[in-house]
């Protein structure tokens, strides 16, 4: 364990919220400076969450669900949309949507972000000798995180450029890393969903086995949507991806609905 031994017991108590004020302040000061102890704190909180999950008890009463439904209905949130004045002012050169950032740059930064997360785990174990390198990685990770946050922010403006006079077509981009089961999918210009329907992403294995469901999603008001790291089985080589229109509950075993967009390979 790379955590500083002198703080080990206090970290456990801190994770529990069981540390007295003076000791807590001392530890918090150390945590500000020590990435190794911050990492250990997250692990301890993970251990404690498992303790919490052992509390199998009765399900909440139905009235609690109704109470929540009423409360969220009273606080509706509309999908982010551009102000009307801005929409009216759009001209031919800002017609539709999507990555002004460019697919290649976006994909590169996302993969850099994932890679840096993995690297950080190793760096924590060798912190003493790699401290300087780690600080640099952390800075890059922060930059990558900010980029990913921008890409995934539903309120971020996304503009796709198409040839003048062409009508924007539905399109999607799947970035799949088989080794780590990472999948990031972006879609744009999707038609609005009919009532009681939902879009579903599918992974088609290269082995020829049945397609694997890779997430249900609903596009925003502009037809854009993102799916990030749905649960996928290990070590599946993908031949293709597709999006289908399915009943609202999804089709978990195989696509039953209408194909909307299908991969063409690269």
């Amino acid at each position, binding site marked *: 364990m790379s955590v500083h031994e002198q703080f*080990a*017991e206090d970290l*456990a*108590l801190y*994770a*529990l*919220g*069981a*540390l*007295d004020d003076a000791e807590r302040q001392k530890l918090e000061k150390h945590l500000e400076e020590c990435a190794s102890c911050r990492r250990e704190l*997250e692990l301890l*909180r*993970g*251990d*404690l*969450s*498992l*303790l919490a*999950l*052992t*509390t*199998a*008890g*009765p*399900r909440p*009463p139905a009235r*609690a*669900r109704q*109470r*929540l*439904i009423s*409360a*969220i*209905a009273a*606080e*509706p949130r*509309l*999908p982010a949309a551009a102000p009307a004045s801005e929409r009216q002012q759009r001209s031919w050169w800002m017609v539709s949507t999507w990555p002004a950032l460019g697919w290649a740059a976006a994909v590169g930064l996302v993969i850099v972000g994932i890679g840096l997360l993995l690297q950080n785990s190793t760096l924590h174990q060798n912190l003493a000798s790699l401290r300087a390198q780690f600080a640099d990685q952390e800075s890059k990770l922060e930059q990558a*995180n900010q980029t990913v946050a921008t890409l995934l922010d*539903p309120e971020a403006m996304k503009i796709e450029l198409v040839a003048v006079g062409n009508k924007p077509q539905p399109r999607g981009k799947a970035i799949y890393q088989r080794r780590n089961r990472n999948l990031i999918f972006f879609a744009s210009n999707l038609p609005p969903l009919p009532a009681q329907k939902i879009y579903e992403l599918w992974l088609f*294995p290269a082995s020829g*086995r*049945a*397609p*694997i*469901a890779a*997430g*249900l*999603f609903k596009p*925003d008001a502009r037809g854009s949507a993102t*799916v*990030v*790291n*749905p*649960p996928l*089985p*290990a070590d*599946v080589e993908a031949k293709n991806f597709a999006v289908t229109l399915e009943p609202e509950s999804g089709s*978990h*075993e195989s696509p039953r609905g209408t194909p909307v967009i299908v991969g063409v390979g690269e």
Partner: protein
Amino acid sequence: MKIGVPSADPNAMTSDMALVTAIRSGDQGAMKALYDRYSSIVYSVALRVLQDTGAAEDVLQDIFMQVWRNPGAFDASRGNMAAWLAVIARNRAIDALRRRRPEDDIEDVSVSVEHDLVSKADRSRIMDKVRGALQAMPAPQRSALEMAYFEGLTHSEIAGKTGEPLGTIKTRIRAGLLSLRKVLAA
């Protein structure tokens, strides 16, 4: 036939992140789906701490309303949804028990769990191991851990309650947590 799906829970195929993304778009149906998936975890934790159904329902409502208002607070890169909600539920319930203002924002909570907790079957398997580890602990160690976690007592309060030295309580709590981790790593 079920093909290549890692989870025994078909609902898990609508990934937590897909639900969160839909909730960010104001999708009330996605919010209901998230509630149906995780409300029993949140409620169970709150009820264990508070021992009062009404108070546990208040914590349940409070947590899911926070998710509705701020779905971006859940960051998949920083933790698993089940574990994240369990930790928030415990913290909020302790705050309610001690009648104090919430100490941390849901955005500040990150949990690193290296086990797959997406499906009920996976959670059940891991929980069996954790319960086994708890049962195998010496009673004073388990008791110190549970007093700190489920009653929200500080180590000084536990020491006062049990008559044990402070250092002993600290050591017991840390040893208890490490033995949990050891069992899970086996």
